[in-house]
């Protein structure tokens, strides 16, 4: 095992390489001016929501707006239109959300393998937050979101965003909010999977879900 000695060797090389850095300089001393913007532009909450919806759609997510009471019916309709039979529900997903849907609801268990996830038609989740300026959803594996594989292997992802308290304006705001859960696995999703590798033509859907539907829900859908 050369691991231990290489560690010392590399750290030693780093220190010798930095001989020009004054001894008394501390790691935080070199100035970083953070005069960049926390938010780009001034918006009302309604405008922020419009921006989120617009940016999501720009990257080919399908966006729906609904109030909390209408959520189960909307989910039922979208799943029916998709022809989904087997629908995956992560632990902690409010039970009422899928009460109108005529589908087999599969609750996630650790025993479900990737191959079993591969034959699921759709997955329904919540999210940790959404970023308006970039059209991004962030999943933090919390209740109603589940482990990362759930939103990766199925081809159709329906993601519910609570507009009252889950929408932030910008990337800096998002990271600030996520700091307490930084140790959890986080997935940032901006539109369905895509590639531009073939002559730079954007093609939706390579490996992740090829269809991403975002449900912007007014009011509190939790008790539904």
């Amino acid at each position, binding site marked *: 095992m*050369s*691991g231990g000695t*290489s*560690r010392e*060797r*590399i*750290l030693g*090389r*780093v220190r*010798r*390489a*930095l001989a*020009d*850095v004054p001894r008394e*300089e*501390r*790691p*935080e001393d*070199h*100035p*970083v*001016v953070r*005069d*960049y*913007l926390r938010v*780009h532009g001034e918006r009302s909450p309604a405008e922020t929501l419009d921006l989120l919806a617009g940016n999501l759609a720009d*990257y080919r997510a399908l966006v729906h707006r609904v109030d909390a009471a209408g959520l189960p019916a909307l989910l039922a309709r979208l799943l029916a239109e998709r022809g989904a039979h087997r629908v995956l529900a992560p632990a902690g997903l409010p039970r009422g959300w899928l009460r109108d849907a005529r589908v087999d609801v599969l609750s996630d268990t*650790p025993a479900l393998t*990737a191959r079993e996830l591969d034959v699921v038609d759709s997955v329904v989740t919540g999210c940790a937050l959404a970023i308006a300026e970039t*059209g991004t959803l962030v999943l933090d594996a919390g209740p109603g979101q589940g*482990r*990362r*594989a759930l939103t*990766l*292997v199925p081809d159709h992802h329906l993601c519910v965003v609570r507009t009252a308290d889950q929408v932030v304006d910008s*990337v*800096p705001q998002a*990271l600030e909010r996520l*700091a307490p859960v*930084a*140790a*959890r*696995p986080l*997935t*940032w*999703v*901006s539109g*369905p*999977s895509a*590639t*531009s*590798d*073939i*002559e730079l*033509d954007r*093609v939706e*859907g*390579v*490996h*992740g879900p090829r269809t991403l539907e975002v449900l912007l829900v007014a009011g509190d859908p939790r008790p539904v």
Partner: protein
Amino acid sequence: MSRDGSDVPRGGGATYLGMPAFPRAADFPRAADTATRDGRLRANLRHATHTIRAKRARAVAELDDWARLREAGAAIKDRTLRHLDHHLVRLEEAVTRAGGTVHWAADAAEANRIVTDLVRATGEREVVKVKSMATQEIGLNEALAESGIRAYETDLAELIVQLGDDLPSHILVPAIHRDRGEIRDIFRDRMASWGRPAPEGLTDRPAELAEAARQHLREKFLRAKVGVSGANFMVAETGTLVVVESEGNGRMCLTLPETLISVVGIEKTVPTWRDLEVFLQLLPRSSTAERMNPYTSMWTGTTDGDGPRVFHLVLLDNGRTDTLADQVGRQALRCIRCSACLNVCPVYERAGGHAYGSPYPGPIGAILTPQLRGLASPLEESLPYASSLCGACFEVCPVAIDIPEVLVHLRERVAEGGEVTVRGTRTVIRPAKRHATERAAMRAARWAFDHPDALRRGQRILSRTRRLQPRRLPGPGRAWTDSRELPAVPAESFRDWWARTRGGTS
């Protein structure tokens, strides 16, 4: 599928020019000369770089504070590099605390050995890989193949490159030199020998090609037990690694296997979680010209019931500390591999990625490769000359790396010799023989750098000193000017020159 590794394709023809252990091309100009004669390659490259360039400009223009973000990005990287030892130790502690295991690799051979041993210990004979410059740099796939372990590239472009027994030519769009017809042929002819064959009657429609790749690779993701990745960022404070991608193959490799091995250059460290707020704005807009790339994964060690149960982080030096020792050259370590500098570079556009002889093509390759490897051969000696010093790369670089400054610095090192650090030891190198006649020109260049006002006025130095330059550059420069695709030293400013030539073939 055979699991004994005996059917591992050996990649006979695919070696980087100048890669150690493989026959070297003489130098950049000769390789570039071949590439510039390939009409299709040039047309593909030109279309691609111009498309990305225009899109990027729009994505950047959306942010009023781009210049301030860029300054902050550069400053955070400098802050990190100035105390890199401190941050690496913190990172190691945080990753270990979160259930990961940290390994240190001084060079490519050691990194390859560590990864090979880790894969062997799992008993597996295949791994799925997400695109990673670091693993290309160390030649990991070839090293694994020698031990009978098959590494599957899963990025669409990397798949095209791997199936085609080819080499990547662009950081972001590695198969940029292939058009759809070629890709269709590669899929049709080669997929079957790597796994699921291409569907019957496959056409060259991009959506169909992507679907073929999805089916071909899904089978591999679902059975993969070991994933190998790099990372775009490592947060010392939290031990979090970040991978930024588009297709979802990264998520597959990071999530589905039981064991994850990430090989990451030590310079990818950032001190704090908050620092990501700068880079997650700079990187997507500067690379794919998007407000945000489709998928970003962040993970910290291991998590019960979610993703790999075993996580290894291999911290790679391989010439980075030597680069750090050079006070002018170290700024190259700020690079976040966005590839914006490639897309604006008139030399890259003509020469193509392969001429740079490493996984790092374009302007960043011209300053990074000679520093990571040292001025070890005519290839590395010629790379600092693979530029017209027009300055476009510096203008677009989201972390403000003054690439022309480093190029001139390295040219001086080539022409005049001087002190360098090689594998941690300070040595004095002698001037490269063929460069003797160029020393006068380098003195002129240095004058310009000693007079920063001249620089700040926006005209890059060599246009000021061009009368002091020989019309045909000596040494490797001569061969370069012989390809006659570019003025070696533009007399006019970049903007004027660009407006006049528009990348035309002169």
